């Protein structure tokens, strides 16, 4: 039975940063991930990372932009911490080897990004997430004697002891089928988001809400789950992401009349308004018949206005994506995009140290968590920052907490239960539905009813569908009966995770009877600070239904005001 001071589940940016911080603080560390760490979805983050590093910038300005971007739902104490610590974190990344682009003086270059009052996004071409992820993995290779890596291990359950503390997890070695209990003084969740609840999504196939569902399962509270970000520029073709960096470099959005329609919606910031605003503007244009493409469901993103040399140097990846996946040379013609599911602002509720209230020993960081620094809407290039700041803080705090604490005693009850559960899934008769069918129906339902515009009738329909699919998932069958790389059985478990997360999203969206950030209710089109300037928390009832409660928004120095871009 592996034993460590700090166990980290998930090896994207948040997980790897937590592992390095915990190891540096002297803890014994295990990092466990269902894919090889460099396959983590952080790799797809393109545009950059925000930090007030310019000499004429101030962290308070970054914080205010973030608060405003969140539509005042973000907790300002956490936002202050994130923005204050951002410059130091970016410099740390630079020192360990991230190849940030430079200006002509050799200093870090900064690009413009949505919702920001000045240029403050450091970047590596348009592979910033990949560059940072690979550099963190270099550091894990450097400290291979201090951090135990469990690559391609799939977590099946978190474990709580009789006192309610989280004392580790059960996981399966995907390569061999071997199941183990991992004992730890502290467990940090870092498994990322849940985009696969939607179809299409920019998110990778691995983003199935594992951490959110596992925490929910053992009674941890979820927060802001209704806040789902639709990214303004995803390929009409297949939902792939076109980085906001394109608009940061000056690209325009055009409707079927060739008009830069953002003038109507955000006359000051235009294409660089916050993502919820731009996505809503695009969807409005499409709904009102000014979309482009054969069925009018797209918008043109015109990158040809950016100099070709600059595009090839700084937006290389989307040149490739345009060519390979849409057959368009973005340096010569506009490309068709539309809003697409991209990010979940909500997640496992934590404090500013990453601790999950009510579950001692459990931490969460990154997209899986909700601190909440993003509130109703995340600014572009704040997600990498969130993962690193709160990954590091969680790692440090967990290591500190572990000092002087004995390794917890853990029985093998959960291990036995999980082995039996997997055996039962494998043995299911072939008279239910296929796992893949249920997943498909979930994704299309969520994308239809829980998207840019929502209303009560649609959300009720979504809720009913999710409840039905949950029932069907209990008997859904798979084909693979083996133990080596049985991806099929893991898919069945992931489906359960996705359904739990989807239900929490729908229930929270039904609950919030106002429009704020990414939640736009056509039946309640105004923001209503009197009643809804509060977080919606969701936790699991004994009978497997979501229980709703509220928590206050922390306001330090910025009172809610009308939000205009």
């Amino acid at each position, binding site marked *: 039975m592996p034993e460590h001071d700090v166990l980290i589940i998930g090896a994207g940016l948040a997980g790897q940063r937590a592992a390095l911080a915990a190891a540096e603080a002297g803890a014994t560390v295990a990092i466990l991930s269902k894919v090889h760490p460099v396959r983590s979805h952080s790799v797809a983050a393109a545009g950059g990372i925000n930090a007030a590093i310019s000499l004429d910038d101030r962290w308070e300005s970054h914080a205010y932009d973030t608060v405003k971007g969140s539509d005042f739902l973000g907790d300002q104490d956490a936002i202050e911490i994130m923005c204050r610590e951002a410059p130091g974190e970016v410099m740390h990344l630079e020192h360990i080897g991230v190849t940030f682009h430079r200006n002509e*003086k050799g200093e*870090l270059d900064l690009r413009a990004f949505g919702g920001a009052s000045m240029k403050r996004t450091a970047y590596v071409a348009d592979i910033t997430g990949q560059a940072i992820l690979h550099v963190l993995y*270099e550091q894990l290779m450097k400290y291979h004697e201090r951090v135990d890596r469990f690559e391609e291990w799939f977590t099946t359950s978190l474990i709580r002891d009789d006192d309610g503390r989280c004392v580790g997890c059960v996981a399966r070695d995907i390569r061999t089928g071997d199941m183990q209990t991992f004992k730890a003084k502290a467990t940090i969740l870092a498994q990322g988001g849940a985009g696969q609840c939607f179809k299409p999504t920019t998110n*990778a196939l691995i983003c199935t809400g594992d951490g959110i569902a596992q925490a929910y399962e053992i009674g941890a509270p979820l927060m802001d789950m209704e806040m789902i970000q639709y990214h303004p520029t995803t390929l009409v073709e297949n939902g792939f992401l076109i980085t906001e960096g394109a608009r940061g470099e000056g690209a325009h959005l055009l409707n079927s009349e060739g008009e830069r329609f953002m003038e109507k919606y955000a006359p000051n910031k235009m294409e660089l308004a916050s993502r919820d605003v731009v996505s809503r503007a695009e969807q409005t244009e499409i709904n009102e018949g000014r979309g482009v493409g054969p069925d009018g469901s797209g918008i043109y993103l015109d990158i040809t206005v950016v100099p070709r040399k600059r595009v090839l140097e700084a937006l290389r*990846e989307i040149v490739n994506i345009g*060519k390979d996946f849409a057959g368009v040379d973005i340096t010569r013609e506009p490309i068709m995009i539309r809003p697409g599911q991209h990010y979940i602002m909500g997640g496992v509720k934590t404090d500013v140290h990453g601790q999950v209230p009510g579950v001692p020993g459990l931490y969460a960081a990154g997209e899986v968590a909700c601190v909440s620094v993003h509130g109703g809407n995340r600014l572009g290039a704040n997600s990498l920052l969130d993962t690193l700041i709160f990954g590091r803080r969680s790692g440090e705090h967990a290591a500190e907490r572990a000092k002087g604490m004995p390794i917890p005693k853990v029985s093998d009850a959960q291990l036995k239960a999980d082995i039996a559960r997997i055996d039962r899934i494998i043995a299911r008769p072939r008279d239910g539905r*296929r796992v*893949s069918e249920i997943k498909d129906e979930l994704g299309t339902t969520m994308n239809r009813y829980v998207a840019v515009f929502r209303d009560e009738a649609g959300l009720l329909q979504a809720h009913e569908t999710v409840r039905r699919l949950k029932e069907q998932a209990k008997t859904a069958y798979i084909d693979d009966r083996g133990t080596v790389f049985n991806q*099929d059985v893991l898919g069945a478990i992931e489906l359960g995770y996705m359904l739990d997360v989807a239900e929490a999203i729908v229930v929270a969206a039904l609950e919030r009877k106002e429009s704020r950030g990414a939640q736009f209710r056509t039946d309640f089109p105004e923001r209503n600070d009197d009643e809804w300037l509060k977080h919606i928390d969701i936790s699991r009832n004994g009978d497997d239904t979501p229980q709703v409660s509220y928590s206050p928004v922390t306001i330090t120095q910025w009172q809610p005001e009308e939000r205009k871009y």
Partner: protein
Amino acid sequence: MAEFTLRIRRWDPESGEAPYWDQHTIDLEPHRSVLEGILQAKARFDGSIGIRCSCRAAICGSCGVRINGQPGLACHTHLDHALKGAKDGVIEVEPMGNMPIIKDLIVDMDAVHWKKVQRVTPWLINKEPIPEREYIVPHHNMVDITQSMACIQCGACVSDCLSMEVDPEFIGPAALAKAYRFAGDPRDAQQFERVKDLAEDPHGIYDCTHCFKCIEACPKGVAPMNQIMRLRRIATGTHHIADRNNGERHESAFVSLVRDHGLLWEAELLPRSYGGDSFFGKFAPKAGMELLDSLPVIARGLLRRKVTPGKAIMPPRDVPKDAREEIKRIFEKVEGRDEVRELNLYISGYDEDAEGAETASASSAAPQGQTSAERGQPGMSPEESPTR
């Protein structure tokens, strides 16, 4: 929609049976990817088909396979183009080469690829003192190493590296490209130690035979072979490392022969690599041993008519004098430059206006990162690539 038939190589290590081919017909638009085809087969017919995949957009590097015998990413290969490369109208998908198979299309990258990456000390060794803010370094240096940073560790280049087939200990294209990312990084304190290590290692930078397979295989335009050549240029040009593999002298012999004769003179290559600059005058003892060692290879080359005695032993005669002069002038021009800046994936050579661009890239003697970046569709020639 159109129907495509996939023939997938299957192997279940638990079955005790031999690998076999498994065929499925799927229904997708022709520009959809082979990965989507496989995922459809998994969803509809057989969930037990093993393939690693995640992002679907050629970023995560999970789905490296061989399609119609060519390495690449399944998500980055369109069905219609894969069909063009198919022998009998069926798209063939196999696991990558040079790595042990775990199950079906899943290979053990830890046993080969990651072990080799770990070999090249894959982390920055900081120049001291570490500044309070960022290191002040030239923009073009950071853009330059961003090309090797663009590697997604998919293993496609490792799969078909011919040198690695012959010498499994060869550090290989991906790990050496990673090594360049540090050797070329102005913030790294140990450029000399790094390249010396890789030059002295018998499985290091001089183990590459310039076959270009890795450049063709790479779906991201990293051009690993170019990075290996850059490591060599740092080893020779910057640090003049006379390695025990004789790589440095071999390279300078090669270059001087082309400079002098306009073409390679094979018989002169060995003596010049190991001794002085004349076949008969300054024959070095080391060359004698190497010559003896090489006799079987030379004999086979003669038998297969890869070399003819006349051409090999006599200096090249069919290069006209003015062409030789032209070649010399090229050498003088390139070597006379104060600073050599290479084109790569990100440094396009394009000026702000398109016209200047074509001239800029055409006149450059640099490696062709640009064009290789646009390849990467297995099973077909670059001309047919949808990226063209």
